[in-house]
């Protein structure tokens, strides 16, 4: 295992120490329990947005704390959902009196831990609502399973709901907007290489030189199927087709298109994928009105990409364009 770490146990603590040093102007890091909060939180009268999940997906979520996005993020151990005490303390720290919205990626662990935290908060008379993301079309949706995973849409969700909260929308309004976004976005990902969880010390799966894993999530888990290595254009098509047909996206619609790197894939390759993704979207009659290209929701050093498409009406585009000031996303301020 080749990583710039000191010991598997200290990865998250030391990362947080680095984040605290790098972003002391904007962020406050709590070490007991672990959470990252806006330095200026709470904002009185504003809904407090919190999220969190296993570490190893950086900049998600801690890198998205700041004006116009999250108020706090709770990092778990690598690929392990955080614990209820983290969300509980984080929410209390950023509670501006207008309620707390939890953005939760749909994984059994995350859902259960955030649920417990919500119960604890309600016991303290803090209003809580939760929005799930479950945008991964690689997973068959079914009432009888854990459902789909939350992946790339989470980044867009945090940006858009963050802007809504900043604008002063109420908890109920933001929850409704979140559900609308949840219903309008789809994602799919693939890996060229696996990743190695620090405490495990070996790759989460093996791939031959000419193999790729299609339909991966963001936890180094194997995907739905193994396929032969293919060209960037072919791989982009493998991801775009299921995304576009699942919802389905209809000709004439406007979308935000997000091409994400899994952590070990350089920007040069992401632009090549983005190029083809736009071509496919346009062939489908879609208008790509906004985009994001980069590594924003990662799986440690995994090489690969995921694509997210989100229907975007004027309201969504307006919220997307609104100012944001976080370590991971910044514009307009």
């Amino acid at each position: 295992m080749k990583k710039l770490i000191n010991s598997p146990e200290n990865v998250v603590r030391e990362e947080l120490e680095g984040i605290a040093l790098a972003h002391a102007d904007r962020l406050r890091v709590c070490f007991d329990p672990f959470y990252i909060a806006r330095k200026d939180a709470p904002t009185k009268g504003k809904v407090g947005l919190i999220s969190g999940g296993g570490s190893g997906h950086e900049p998600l979520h801690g890198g998205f704390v700041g004006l116009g996005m999250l108020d706090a993020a709770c990092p778990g151990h690598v690929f392990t959902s955080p614990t209820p005490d983290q969300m509980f303390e984080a929410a209390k720290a950023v509670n501006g009196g207008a309620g707390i919205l939890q953005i939760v990626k749909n994984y059994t662990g995350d859902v259960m831990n955030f649920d417990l935290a919500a119960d604890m908060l309600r016991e303290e008379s803090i209003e809580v609502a939760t929005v799930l993301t479950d945008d991964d079309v690689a997973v068959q949706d079914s009432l009888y399973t854990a459902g789909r995973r939350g992946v790339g849409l989470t980044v867009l969700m945090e940006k858009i709901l963050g802007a809504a909260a900043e604008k002063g929308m109420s908890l109920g309004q933001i929850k409704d907007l979140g559900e609308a976004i949840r219903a309008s976005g789809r994602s799919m990902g693939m890996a060229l290489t696996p990743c190695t969880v620090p405490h495990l010390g070996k790759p989460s799966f093996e791939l031959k030189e000419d193999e790729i894993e299609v339909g991966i999530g963001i936890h180094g888990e194997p995907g739905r199927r193994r396929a032969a290595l293919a060209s960037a254009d072919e791989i982009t098509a493998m991801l775009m087709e299921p995304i576009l047909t699942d919802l389905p996206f209809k000709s004439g619609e406007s979308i935000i298109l997000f091409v994400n790197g899994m952590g070990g894939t350089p920007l040069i390759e992401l632009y090549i994928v983005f190029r083809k993704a736009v071509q496919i979207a346009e062939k489908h009659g879609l208008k790509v009105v906004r985009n994001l290209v980069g590594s924003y929701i990662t799986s440690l050093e995994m090489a690969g990409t995921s694509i997210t498409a989100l229907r975007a009406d004027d309201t969504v585009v307006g919220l997307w364009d609104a100012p944001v000031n976080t370590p991971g996303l910044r514009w307009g301020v």
Partner: protein
Amino acid sequence: MQELTQAEMRVWIWEAAAVIDKNSALLCDLDAAIGDGDHGANMTRGFAAVLKKLEGGAVAGDLGAFFKTIGMTLLSTVGGAAGPLYGGFFLELGKQSAGRTSLDGPSLAVLIEAGLADIKRRGKAEPGDKTMVDALVPAVEAMKAAGGDLAAVTRAGAEAARLAATNTAPLQARKGRASYLGERSIGHQDPGANSAALLLESLARICSA
């Protein structure tokens, strides 16, 4: 041993922590095959925290207070799916044993049945979904059927859990991370069913000692 008191329960937790630690890599490997590879690390971290919590001496009060301490500690240290499930399991044990200071075989079986009910309520998994529920359901049945002394009850539970954990291999997962794999989850044992078997095996060892 006729009755389990907090003193014996503490020995169980020590034993369980040691066994979990020893099998941490195995649990991680099982999880890596069909999940995200952290189950061993999560459980080891959680039980190490519990040990630390119990270091100071006996928990003041009844078994209810004792199990609640364990549950709360697991809840805030394990994380992932196993954290709320095992944490909730022990919290439920605490609730059901409030006011008691010892347990015989049959009442232990009833208590664990209550803990299992909490896991099922929280995780919504049924037997056959390839989760820890697959190990715990037959274990509880066996414990209740065995009746009699603690040694017999816990040994029946441990054996049933182990067999059932092994038998999760051919199942296709319908809950937890492994469900994302669909058919590719077939052929691997469930990590949580294995950790459940480890916990019951260490309990049986204590009760047979």
